[in-house]
Structure formats: C-alpha cells, structure tokens
C-alpha cells in the first residue's frame, strides 16, 4: 500500500465518520438521487446537504452526473473495496498477533501443569465495519 493510497483511504474514512453522510450513502445505495431528494428526509437546508455531498464526492464515494441539469448523485461501489481490503489487513495483523500468543501459551503450558485434555484447536470469528 502506497502512502498516497493510504491518504485516499483516510479521506474516505473521514467522509464516513459523519452520520448524515452515512445516511446519504444508504439512500444512494437504493438508486441515484438529486440534492433536493436527498435533503428531504433531513432537517437540513439544501446548502448543508450540498456540503456533505461535496465531501463524499471528494472522497470518491459518490459521483454526480455532468449531463442532466439536476445532476443526480450516484454511489461508487468500487471505491469501497480498498477500505474493505485495508480492514482485512488490519484483521490479519491481529490474527497474526494472536497466533504468536498461542505459540507462546503452548510453550508456557508445556513447562507447567497439564490443564486437561489435548485439544489444541482454536476458533476465530471476525466482524468488521467500514465495508
């Protein structure tokens, strides 16, 4: 991962940090919408919504049509992929750390009293946000 790619990623995460912007994205996941349509469910001016839309657009998470006069906003699904990839790498870091911890525990317990049984399997389950 290049530093440039990481900067893009931090801009994307920052864009997602705001609940109004997440609500806008949720709405856009159901189809394109104009600024006016997006403003409707919020107690916000169209101007305030436009600011949020600019942040999302700069982050690359949405695009706006250059053709139609109303310039409807669209979600850019591909842009969410490198966020998912980064979260995956972060998970790998923890998995790796706990793998080493297991090795350390095995070494410790080999010297100590038997803790019953010979089961060695361990289970993993993960949940991630930002995807």
């Amino acid at each position, binding site marked *: *991962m290049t*530093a440039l790619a*990481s*900067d893009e*990623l*931090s801009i994307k*995460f*920052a864009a*997602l*940090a705001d609940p109004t912007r*997440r609500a806008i994205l949720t709405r856009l996941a159901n189809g394109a919408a104009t600024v006016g349509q997006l403003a409707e469910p919020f107690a916000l001016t169209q101007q305030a919504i436009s600011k949020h839309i600019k942040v999302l657009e700069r982050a690359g998470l949405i695009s706006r049509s250059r053709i139609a006069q109303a310039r409807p906003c669209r979600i850019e699904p591909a842009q969410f992929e490198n*966020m998912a990839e980064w*979260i995956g*790498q*972060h*998970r*790998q*870091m*923890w*998995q*790796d*750390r*706990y793998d*080493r*911890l*297991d*090795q*350390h*525990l095995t*070494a*410790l*317990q080999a010297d100590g009293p038997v*803790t*019953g*049984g010979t*089961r*060695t399997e*361990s*289970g*993993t*389950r*993960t*949940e*991630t*946000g*930002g995807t």
Partner: protein
Amino acid sequence: MTQPGEFTYRRVHRASRDLLFDCMTRPEHLTHFWGPDGTTTPVSGITVDLRPGGVFETVMQNVTDGSRYTMRAVYLEVRRPERLVWTEPGVEGGMTTTITFSDLGDVCTEVVTHQINVQVMFASPEARRGFETSLRRFDDYIASIAAT
C-alpha cells in the same frame, strides 16, 4: 451496529483468563508475540503502568533495517482478569482498544478485541509507515512459506 472504523476480532485460546490477561499486560510475555513478524519487541522497550491513566508503550524494531515504531497508549480501564481498555491519544479521537476475556470453562477463554476509530492510524504518518512495514514483513513471511 457496526460503525465505520470499528473493528472486532474474536478468538478462543486454550488457557485461563488470568494467564491471558497476564500475557497482554506483562512485558516478559508481550515480548514473545506483540510485534509483527520481522520485528522484535524487546522487554526493555515495553512500558506497562497497569492502572487507569497509566502508560502502555511498545517499541517494535525492524529486524532487517533496525527502524523503530513506537505504539503509545494510555490505559483507561484495568480489570483483571476480565477487561482491559487502552487508547492511543496521539491523534484527536484516538484509536481505543477494548479487550475482554470470557471464561468458557474447560480452561478455554474467549478473547474479544474491539477497536474504535481505527481509521486514525492513517492520520499519523509514523503509524502508517509502521503499519505498512509490518504488512510488508508479513507478505515476505507468507512468500517464504509458500516458496518452501
């Protein structure tokens, strides 16, 4: 609900809660597993002041080029053996890590690692470099395994 920048990792280990809590909080244990592959985390570079407001720092050193990356955190909550919380306050809204230890019986413990504000790692160039280095090391490690 899972928020952007929130991260959860669950794992079951075959050891008691007390031992796992000690592994996560004692330098003589942390040195064995804390740093990413291709780094060392010497005991001398680990600071653990195990109380709320106390310092938790680890200096990870790259084996090949000697470069160092320091994680600087402060404990928010210390409840042996069930819960440990620290925050990395270097950046506004710092990344906060909560580790809970649940006794499953039969000397099995579930360790849940939950982090919020994970994205702030990217606000700090130093953290970014350290993290990228660790990933590169990990990739090298995987490549070396695959080659054999």
